């Protein structure tokens, strides 16, 4: 029994889920420190001299030495790590060599674009994936089931950057159905004031309908592709959760009582499948971040992923590590969120703790 559980048992007054959340928080802190340690280590094994990166290779011996001391490179490794953690906690991720700005500012600028893209994608993945999964489960073993299965496997197998390029070629260059790379046409770019940093939201808030439709046309292709990627996973999990529910006795009871089949499927079974499904959706939201890195690069989408790959191209380690850390932290936060949602939504877990 852990210490948390013991104190909880003695007080007895706290509801059990408080203990569960407490343990989650401890895990969260340990994981975040681990994330910091990994990025710190990666930063230390780089063959690039951090001092040269800061002062340039024409600096004098004394400048070099001064910066060497300023960066704390003479101190033992653990002390350097503490300095690093301290800096990160104060929001100091270093300066980007490429943009000459603090990395944190760059990330704050690019993050909303990634958030917009992946939110669009997860909406598509959920709104299409869940019904498809339900349909496949109801028609288990039939043609629909096979089609959904192959559709999912194709989604797992196609390299997303290649799908993106091919999509651009067909739907933008040949057919002209959607707008090309980027988030919005240059003509609108300077009219839209930055409020949330998300184009679709900002244009709507300002009532600029032309700009809104233009932005929508830009996000349609990358968002749908990324959505397809999560659809593959969501529909598959929906199918297996639904199959598990449809085999339960309460379904037979409902059928015997003469409840309509559509009501059994959508109200009885799906409702029970929804709890694990929510965690799956939260997890694939996190996984979208990694698909977003490649998608953004292909579509010149100015988000965190493109920032990361651009920095990689110019060996801008502060930016690379900062972006990696932020993506890792968001990923951890989403995993935690899925755990919390599971606790909150499932009455059995809530009571047992």
């Amino acid at each position, binding site marked *: 029994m852990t210490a948390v559980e013991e104190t909880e048992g003695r007080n007895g007054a706290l509801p059990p889920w408080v203990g569960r959340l407490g343990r989650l928080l401890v895990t969260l802190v340990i994981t975040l420190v681990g994330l910091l340690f990994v990025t710190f280590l990666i930063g230390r094994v780089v063959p690039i001299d951090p001092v040269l990166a800061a002062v340039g290779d024409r600096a004098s011996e004394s400048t070099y030495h001064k910066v060497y001391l300023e960066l704390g490179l003479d101190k033992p490794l653990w002390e350097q790590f503490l300095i690093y953690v301290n800096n990160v906690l104060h929001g100091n991720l270093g300066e980007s060599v490429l943009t000459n700005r603090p990395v944190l500012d760059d990330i704050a600028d690019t993050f909303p674009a990634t958030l917009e893209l992946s939110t669009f994608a997860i909406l598509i993945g959920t709104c299409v994936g869940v019904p498809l999964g339900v349909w496949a489960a109801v028609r288990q073993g039939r043609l629909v089931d096979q089609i959904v299965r192959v559709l999912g496997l194709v989604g797992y197998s*196609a390299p997303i950057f290649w799908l993106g390029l091919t999509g651009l070629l067909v739907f933008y260059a040949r057919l002209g159905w959607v707008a090309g790379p980027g988030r919005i046409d240059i003509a609108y770019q300077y009219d839209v004031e930055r409020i949330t940093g998300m184009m679709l939201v900002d244009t709507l808030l300002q009532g600029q309908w032309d700009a809104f439709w233009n932005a929508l046309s830009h996000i349609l292709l990358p968002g749908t592709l990324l959505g397809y990627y999560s659809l593959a996973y969501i529909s598959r999990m929906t199918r297996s959760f639904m199959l598990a529910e449809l085999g339960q006795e309460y379904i037979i009871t409902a059928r015997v009582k003469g409840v309509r089949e559509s009501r059994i499927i959508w109200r009885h079974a799906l409702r029970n499948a929804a709890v694990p499904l929510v965690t799956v959706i939260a997890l694939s939201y996190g996984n979208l971040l990694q698909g977003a890195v490649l998608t953004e690069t292909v579509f010149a989408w100015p988000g965190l992923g493109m920032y990361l790959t651009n920095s990689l191209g110019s060996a801008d380690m502060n930016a690379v590590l900062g972006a990696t850390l932020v993506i*890792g932290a968001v990923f951890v936060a989403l995993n935690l969120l899925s755990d919390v949602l599971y606790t909150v939504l499932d009455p059995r877990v809530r009571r047992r703790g």
Partner: protein
Amino acid sequence: MSVMSREWLLTEQPASRRQAHVGQAYRTWLALRGNRLAMVGLGIIVVLILMAVLAPLIAPYDPIQGGDLRTERLLPPSWQHLMGTDDLARDIWSRVAYGSRITLMVVALVAVIATPVGLLVGTISGYFGGVVDTVLMRITDIFLAFPQLVLALAFVAALGPGIENAIIAISITSWPPYARLARAETLTIRNADHIAAIKLQGASSLRIIWGHVVPLCLSSVVIRVTLDMAGIILTAAGLGFLGLGAQPPQPEWGAMIAEGRQFIIDNWWVSTMPGIAIFVVSLGFNFLGDGLRDVMDPKARK
């Protein structure tokens, strides 16, 4: 040899451990053979291996040395050049054929590096429990806390681009799920009677883990690795596409897509052909993995 007959394989009373093992494998194979998608996947993988072995025979041109730059640049697919040529007048089919060697090498090396690491961490963690378990599993969790591609990107950024470093980076990021799985298996084996018997005979922990726990975890971990192979191929291709994997002029499929990117509007075949190759191969691994999961997991078979 009559020993390998169908009856011998399918007998209900195996006379030896080996017969039971072989018979079990044969039953799995029979179940797998009935799964059409899995057989398609297996066929694709066999073709990939043949392609890699026979690359010098089936590739009509040199994959690196191009043809005449004045007349043979960016030719569309034809009988002379099945998949067309790229901007350096190289035959794309020849490059795709040789590229299968790189893809196979990446998959094989990652499996060879990541599987033992995962097995070792998982079995040690599960067998000893306590502090060892907590520390090792925390480390595993931290690696699992990054999206795989992003962590691999950061590692390659630190190590420098190149196919070897890409393989190392992918391996570093792939072992944690195997460790998790091996640990879970070990926890169920740890208290078995035969382990207690070996312990009473005075076997060292290392001997027990290596000789008696690892072999029992091996099959489920190997299946998991097979399931992950498509993902490994896609990650390697993604790194190649970003210019961090195999370096030009190596015919790596992901890098080939990146090279064809600037010509995509007028010369679609340059990046489409290697893309189809990646797609078909990872589809093959996914089909096979999907079938294997159905056959191995009685819950899914229902």
